[in-house]
């Protein structure tokens, strides 16, 4: 049954606005030869995103009021690729259209992207004001929003893939925004390459889907081929379980790349080289949740393979714990948040793997609020410290422990900022409470839901999933409170920290709005609670079975109490230790196996995963490629070619001697020839 609804054609305005903003900022003005005034360039980009938000709200109201049969609709714009089948029977024609899918899930993502994205645009107008690449920044940012919207609105996998690779490209451009820094260029390249590994998975998944099921559309649209999500069980019956599992794992590989899960997470911490608003927008609120979005979009397929679901759950929960443990020891404020993002994304995958996609999506939303708030807040902190550093030119203490006294992102250069930047601090503490899962903040409702579901379903490894999730929640509380303590409390550790000043309203308003959202999202008295939320999403991601509220509240209270304990302990420890360091230098220097110092050393170095990847893949790859080029290609393949040439020349040189022009030697060879012929004849006669 096709779902085409041409009356929704205006939905295409949503990606169109940022595209127009991108074209004006990126092409029209450079070709005309004059950059726009800063306020105009940034304003244009921001207005474009908020216009999309307005249209998204219209769509939201439409979907909300539509009757059950019309909650999902497709909007056809134009054909993209079309190859007809070669014969009528048994061969699938290949038809891919530019077609949007409007349903609760896509509308939700549109609202998050344009809403949070718009706030971050606004913030960037303040944050990037002094940068010479101002217009370039907004060009990239608008392009990113465009691709991200394509990703979440497409009705088929290839069009989703446009957005999927497109956001990867924008991520590349924005991580490498400060292109003169080598570390920025390296991080950008790393992000692109690691993401590409995942993208190959998505591509192969697409090949499988088309080959076996003949469709790449999510729901039935203009092409008339039954969409994969609708026909999933019937389609799967046609292929073997191995095929289905393989294809789903391939798609999931793509999700691990985009959403920074084990084993492809290493690019995200490095991605912090980009400007801070980028970290908030791309590497926390939107792009990295694309993997969870894709799982939810294709959930009718995923639930058909237990192997795939278990893999997702295990990967998610393992990543959550792993990343949280690394987050414990990081000194760079943005890297703490990066590992925390990876860890929270792991929670969302764990939710998907447990079959509660709605809970995963709910955490996507609340995480977008509080993590964007944290990143923007950290940007405000960095901004304040950096300006004070520029003003003071201070080098008042000697570098130690790899500490750069002029690094505005290092928490060891901060401390005691609370009275100096109060608004930022309060907002960040609110968001920290949310991420820790403190009642009544948003994270309490969303994380609680996931933990409880892992408890309630208990299909994959019973206690273990809940236990690991619980442990991760405790670690999360610890590293987040550690960050807050080191940044805002204690004595200022540099003069810069002493002289820090609060940022302007352009930056504070978005932080404030997000902090409020981190507080109230999920309140049962507001329409934004989880029950209403999953009810709204139901047409897209199915209805989740009713939970047992009694156990849920008990579990929730227990978790809450444990988290509160950790927080109190953490605050107490950091208040009582000198210089905000938990470990004495001599304990740190002791690297005996499994001693606290060793653990500290291993975690500080991120378990040496980057080093291992570098050694095994980059270094060995280079050695192998060098051998392939110098030895195999130049000496081997080309050597044979040149050798054939040389052989011809050499034999020519030899044979040339016979053509020496002396009659006597010609006569001699004639005699030899005649003799040979004679002998040949005689032998021949003898045989007869």
């Amino acid at each position, binding site marked *: 049954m096709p779902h085409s609804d041409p009356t929704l054609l205006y939905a295409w305005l949503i990606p169109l606005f940022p595209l127009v903003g991108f074209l004006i900022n990126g092409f029209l003005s450079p070709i005309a030869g004059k950059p726009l005034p800063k306020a105009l360039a940034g304003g244009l980009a921001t207005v474009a995103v908020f216009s999309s938000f307005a249209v998204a709200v219209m769509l939201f109201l439409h979907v909300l009021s539509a009757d059950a049969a019309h909650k999902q609709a497709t909007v056809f714009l134009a054909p993209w*690729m079309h190859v007809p089948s*070669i014969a009528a*029977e*048994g061969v699938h024609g290949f038809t891919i259209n530019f077609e949007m899918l409007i349903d609760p899930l896509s509308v939700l993502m549109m609202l998050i992207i344009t809403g949070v994205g718009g706030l971050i645009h606004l913030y960037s107008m303040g944050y990037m004001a002094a940068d010479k690449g101002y217009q370039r920044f907004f060009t990239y940012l608008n392009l990113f929003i465009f691709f991200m919207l394509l990703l979440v609105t497409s009705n088929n996998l290839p069009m989703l893939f446009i957005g999927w690779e497109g956001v990867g490209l924008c991520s590349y451009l924005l991580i490498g925004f400060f292109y003169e820094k080598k570390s920025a260029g390296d991080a950008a390249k790393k992000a692109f390459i690691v993401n590409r590994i995942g993208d*190959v998975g998505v591509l192969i998944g697409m090949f499988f889907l088309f080959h076996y099921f003949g469709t790449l559309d999510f729901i039935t649209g203009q092409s008339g081929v039954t969409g994969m999500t609708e026909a999933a069980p019937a389609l799967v019956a046609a292929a073997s379980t191995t095929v289905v599992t393989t294809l789903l794992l391939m798609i999931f590989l793509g999700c691990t790349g985009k959403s920074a899960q084990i084993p492809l997470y290493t690019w995200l911490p490095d991605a912090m080289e980009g400007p801070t608003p980028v970290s908030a927008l791309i590497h926390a609120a939107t792009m990295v949740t694309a993997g969870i979005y894709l799982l939810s979009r294709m959930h009718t397929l995923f639930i058909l393979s237990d192997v795939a679901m278990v893999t997702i759950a295990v990967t998610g929960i393992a990543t959550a714990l792993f990343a949280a443990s690394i987050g414990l020891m990081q000194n760079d404020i943005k890297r703490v948040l990066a590992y925390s993002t990876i860890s929270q994304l792991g929670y969302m995958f764990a939710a998907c793997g447990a079959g509660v996609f709605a809970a995963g999506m709910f955490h996507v939303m609340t995480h977008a609020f509080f993590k964007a708030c944290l990143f923007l807040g950290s940007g405000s902190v960095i901004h304040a410290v950096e300006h004070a550093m520029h003003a003071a030119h201070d080098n008042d203490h000697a570098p130690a422990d790899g500490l750069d006294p002029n690094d505005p992102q290092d928490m060891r250069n901060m401390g005691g900022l609370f009275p100096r930047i109060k608004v930022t601090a309060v907002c960040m503490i609110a968001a920290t409470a949310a991420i820790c899962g403190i009642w009544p903040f948003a994270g309490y409702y969303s994380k609680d839901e996931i933990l409880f579901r892992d408890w309630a379903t208990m299909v994959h490894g019973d206690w273990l999933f809940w236990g690991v999730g619980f442990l991760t929640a405790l670690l999360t509380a610890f590293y987040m409170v550690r960050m807050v303590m080191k940044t805002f409390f204690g004595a200022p550790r540099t003069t810069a920290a002493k002289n820090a000043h609060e940022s302007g309203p352009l930056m504070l308003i978005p932080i404030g709005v997000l902090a409020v959202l981190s507080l109230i999202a999920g309140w049962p008295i507001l329409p934004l609670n989880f029950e209403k939320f999953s009810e709204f999403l139901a047409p897209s991601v199915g209805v989740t079975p009713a939970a047992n509220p009694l156990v849920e509240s008990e579990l929730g209270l227990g978790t809450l109490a444990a988290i509160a304990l950790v927080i109190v302990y953490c605050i107490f420890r950091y208040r009582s230790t000198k210089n905000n360091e938990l470990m004495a230098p001599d304990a740190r220097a002791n690297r005996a196996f499994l001693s606290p110092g060793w653990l500290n050393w291993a975690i500080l170095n991120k378990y040496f995963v980057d080093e291992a990847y570098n050694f095994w893949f980059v270094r060995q790859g280079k050695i192998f*490629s060098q051998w392939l080029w110098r030895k195999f290609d130049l000496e081997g393949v080309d050597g044979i070619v040149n050798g054939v040439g040389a052989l011809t020349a050499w034999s020519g040189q030899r044979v040339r001697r016979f053509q020496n022009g002396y009659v006597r030697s010609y006569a001699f060879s004639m005699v030899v020839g005649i003799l040979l012929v004679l002998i040949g004849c005689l032998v021949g006669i003898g045989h007869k």
Partner: protein
Amino acid sequence: MFEFHGLLTLIVFLPAAFALLAALLPKTNLKAIQGMALIGTLATLAVSVLLYAQYTPNSPHQFQLIDKTQWISSLHINYFLGMDGISLMMVLMTTVIFPFVVGVSFKEITQRTREYYCWVLVMETAILGVFLSLNLVLYYLFWEGMLIPMYFIIGIWGGPKRIYATVKFFLYTMIGSMVMLVSIMALYFLAGSSTFDLPELQKHVSVGGMFSGKQATDILLFLGFFLAFGIKAPIFPFHSWVPDAYAEAPTGGTIILVALKMGLYGFIRFCLPLFPFAIKACAPVIIVLAVIGIIYAAFVAAMQTDLKRLIAYSSISHIGVIMLGIFALTSLGLTGAVMQMVSHTITTGALFILVGALYARRQSYKIADYGGLMAVMPMFTVVFLIATLSSVALPLTSGFTGEILLLMGSFQTNPWATGFATTAAIWSVVYMLWMFQRVMYGKLDKDENRSLPDLTRGEKLALFPLVLLIFALGIYPTPLLLNKVNPSVNTVLAQTMPVYADPFAAPPISTPKLAAVAMQPRGQK
């Protein structure tokens, strides 16, 4: 027998006619010679647009706009030109790229200019002749004729190692051609055909036809063609002339070499319809070679220190992917292959123009001589990035449209090989982005680079149209290209499939049914 529309003859010989005109101009009048060459290529482009408009995709005749007449009647050799959707795209691709070949040479070629432009125009005639000839002897003449201008273009106007490169190119291609000539002759005599015309020969290839019971002969004759096409394509392990020729040729010559899709075209036009049995037998080997080539060339490309050689190796890798599409023998794969041939020409052509622009500024192709160019050449960087992205097949660029169709089709028959080939998406990013980073990103630490000018007006004229084409083919391929190519691809496959499905035996079954069986996904049996 006699049929003459004239358009194809016109387009083939138009560049040669302009070459003659240019030759008559005085040597010293540089502007007039350049203008003549540019007008010649643009006029050819105009005619090819006319062809595009004239071509009707869903006609019952495979070849259209036929020019056919007796030529050497004692040897049964006809003058026979004809066009289908596939050759239409090849012709368009060639005529589109040649004005750029002429344009980029304006500054670069300062010695013996009249000669240079004459050879370039003659070259265009030879290439168009190859794409449009349907008589094997006529085809062979054009194929060999192409060698002479190319020999001079590399040998006279090339880089420091030009003589080595051009001799290698010439001899290597020549060896392949000789073997192909033997195959052509043998085919003619074995078939007992009355002419060398392709449609005539094709009729003799069917179940119970000239190859029934002669598998060895069939495969040997196919290998004759395979060697010629494989060297020209180039396919691993016959690729080693490519880095030298690409690197030593002047920019214009390199772009011509990129646009030389004659080998790949030859596989589609001649090998598929004429040797269906042999292809069935040899496809696994070819596919393995293609996959090795894809990954191997990508690894080697990553290690290059010279921009031109890096792009040359990347070309070898891309050609491997196209081979995979052709020998998948599915309509998706073949259509994708045609698409990718066009896209590769445009994209790699743009990349070589960009590298040539760098060379014009700094007289160096060494990656190490650059770095941080983004600060002084922002617009150049953007265009370079777009070409790079099309080369790594980012969606909405032409490279993606070709690659996804091709791999999707190839997966239907060779899932494992396609799986390996798809990793090219990773390797291509490794070598292209690493190169991009080393040239564009980083600090502008070399004094010579500090004052490099951004794109000049001429360079913008050369690059913006190519960028537009990259996006046009990436965003709107169906009406532009796919609809014209699809029916022809299906005809070619229909000629290959019935025999392919059941080699060396069995009574003939109706075409569509068998094609359907051959195309059926494995899981649904």
